[in-house]
């Protein structure tokens, strides 16, 4: 039986929730459990060293910045070119960002399908779908215009649907 390290005391539910949310956001960026674990730990050290506030927005921003530092040689977190359809799409009500999209999926099919999206697309889906961020909230976090967020969201959903229909091939 494994012995518990003496330094590790109990942690509050609030702290655990914050770190787990950070980990899942990191997972949406990296799509790799090991990298996400390293990323969230790096980000947490950065938060502690800067004595930053312990909240979701600051932690997520730090994770995003660390992700760019570590894995993006170009040093940018760009939405990429959006096609005309994505840009000119009618703006949906905020609360319906993802709720209205019904999708048929077998168990375990979403993970591989998400792997075919870019980090930016996964991050937008995660923030809207799991963290309930509004389009403006995502725009503020990622430093993009709100219209770009909606365009990336639309492109991500289209790619996801196409990937699922083709059996996890983009």
């Amino acid at each position, binding site marked *: 039986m494994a012995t518990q390290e003496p*330094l590790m005391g109990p942690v509050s539910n609030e702290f655990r929730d914050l770190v787990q949310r950070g980990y899942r956001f990191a997972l949406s960026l990296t799509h790799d459990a090991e990298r996400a674990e390293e990323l969230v730990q790096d980000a947490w050290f950065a938060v502690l060293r800067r004595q930053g506030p312990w909240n979701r927005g600051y932690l997520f921003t730090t994770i995003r910045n660390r992700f760019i530092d570590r894995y993006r040689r170009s040093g940018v977190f760009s939405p990429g070119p959006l096609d005309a359809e994505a840009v000119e799409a009618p703006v949906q009500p905020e609360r319906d960002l993802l709720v209205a999209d019904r999708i048929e999926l077998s168990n375990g099919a979403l993970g591989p399908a998400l792997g075919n999206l870019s980090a930016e697309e996964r991050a937008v889906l995660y923030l809207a779908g799991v963290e309930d961020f509004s389009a403006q909230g995502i725009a503020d976090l990622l430093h993009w215009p709100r219209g770009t967020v909606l365009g990336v969201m639309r492109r991500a959903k289209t790619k996801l649907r196409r990937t699922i229909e083709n059996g996890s091939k983009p």
Partner: protein
Amino acid sequence: MSTRTLKDHLVEHYGGMDLPPQVVRRLGALADAEGEADVSHKLALRSRWTPVGVAVCIVLLATSVGLQVYQMARRPAALLVQRPAEPVSGWRAEPVDSGGAPRLVAVKFHIDGCPYAAETAPLFAALIDKYAEKPVVFAKYDMTTPARMAQSKNLARALGVEWLYEGAYQSGMIELVDRESGQVLAKVTKRNELETIEQALDQALP
């Protein structure tokens, strides 16, 4: 097959992915020495005590400066005359010759309190013990504070491997480099075995 909203699928997918509990506890222990990582408590404590802390620091600083000025004013003028500097015996101001330094350098990237650094610390210690008599330089790149980082970079410059710190690295990682060719011969993280770097060392050593 299940037809649900994309939101439901995403919540289910990401909801099942958790950071291992031991990692959460480690981060909690880092954040709070008392072992109780309570966000609201920390936030409240910080906002309440920060102005008090700043005020106390200002008072202490002002008192210290005032005392020094008072002592200087009371000191006899003769004592303020500087004695001529004398050469320190035994000190030779000669540049360090690193020409004869070993070709191989093993560097451990380190941050105090980092769980990865803690996990690879025994590996690095074992490596030093095993190769203590061999022509290998063991160095630690300490990134805990800016001052330690600066000192580590000075050491790297002296060893001729300052380029090593310009690339991608992470706390806890151990790298074996050939400072002449600039080649990274082996890299060890907490997920690798120590044998990786030992094999590379055995091959590279004369």
